[in-house]
């Protein structure tokens, strides 16, 4: 039980440390899914809808 308590305490400390680092958004910024990706996605979606219509006919 004491092992679990120690582990959970350490885990909480590490998480709190990282949350503070993450609150600085520029530090943890990952490249976003952008407008270009959205356009590609819409294009893929439309292509798939056309494909489905082709398949049923």
């Amino acid at each position, binding site marked *: 039980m*004491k*092992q*679990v308590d*120690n*582990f*959970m305490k*350490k*885990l*909480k400390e*590490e*998480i*709190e440390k*990282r*949350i503070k*680092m*993450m*609150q600085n958004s520029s*530090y*943890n*910024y*990952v*490249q*976003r*899914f*952008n407008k270009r*990706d959205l356009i590609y*996605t819409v294009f*893929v*979606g439309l*292509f*798939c*809808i056309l*494909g*489905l219509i*082709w*398949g*049923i006919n």
Partner: protein
Amino acid sequence: MPTKKQTENQVANEVYYGIIPILRNERIYGFWDVFFATTAWAIASWCYVQGGYIATMLGAKALISNTIFGMTIAGIFLCFTVLISTRYGIDLWIYQKALFGYKAVLVIAAITIASNYGYEAINVKLYANSLMILCKSAGLTLSEAWNPWIGMTCVLLGWWIALIGPKAIGYTTKIMVPSSLIVGVIILILLSAKCSLAELAAINPVRAGSGSNWERYMLVMELNVAFVIAWYPLLGVLPRLVKSERASYWGHLAGFAIIQAVVVSIGALTGLVMSAITGVESTNPTEWLIVLGGPWWGGISLILISIANVTAQAIAIYSVTVSTKVLMPSLDYKKVATFWSAWCALLVFWGGIWDYYQTYIAIIGAICGPAVALILVDFYIIRKQKISIASLFQSSGKNAYTYTNGYNLPAIIAFASGIASYFLVYDPVNLVPKSKIFLYTTATGLSMLVSAGIYWGFSLLKPVNNYLRKDCQEE
């Protein structure tokens, strides 16, 4: 009693295999890493079972278009959820504390992970079938009663590998992927040797007479959409390790939707050819291999399926155990792995997943569809892509996602309504639509629309919005 150093190591392990939010400089996956990892999962032998089932309802052209395009559309919606995991470096289950509440998320996770384990039971069944056919060809005919006991060796081997840890899992993936790929290539070669494209296009499915073309097309669409949406419980493990949202989204879409659709299509075409050769419905890929490939090629393929399925079992136990530990980090890894292995063994001995495959897929669609829709509405529309990480981890006394004793009531009502709407339009036992709405939305699609609509509707009411957005006051 572990030393301080061992405890620190244990905590450090949680960065890659557990609960700790992962920072940008710790990310290890790019697009190709995600693509190969998701492909490894997506091409497992359950794809052939799915292909075999849908081949009973449609001809070749409709099967391919329905599978490739239908699965990709489902994948587009599903993969928008991985952006959350990648952006914040957290497992999707951690984020779902904001959606369902601290306690409700445990219940939803238990239901979805437990129901998703049916896929592993299917893999174990295929492993047992393969070994029984191999024994038969060696002159040793075993009765059907042996099937689950032989399957148990797969469960035990998978459990043993999963206990060794992530390194062993890494090695097994290197065995699983080529084995599954070789089986796919063998099936494709055997298929093209047996049947020309023109002959393939002319084959009528076994159930061509049951219902209109449109109805059968939408029934297959339902099975395909549910098959892709079924990845939802396992979606958080990989994307938190990816370096960019773009790589994460396209990598997951390519593996879990497009490549999987290609393998299911190969299975579907093989099932179609099999029904033309034998005149009966066959959904068992282990039978196909012997009929199409004869003793040599069939035998080699069955050995490869057995190997791939043991490794798939190991990876599944490992991933599910990690997902469980993400929500309950104090649990012992070995005990959790043993619990899920025992659950798989129970499903194998029961045998219901294999016997009622289409009903099983329906249950998966009914549970996972509304959950995915709720995640999308909650994150992108209601929270406008802003969540409180401190509240997700209940750090520094922040508890914005407590809601009503740990349960987000509007989300739970919307989730239950989505499931109810599913069964209002579709009878998954007799596999028939109960309403014409099914012919335009499918049951999974409708359940997603209903859940999303109800939850979004609730959020438009000012008091409910305040109830949902307590995190606004924190960050």
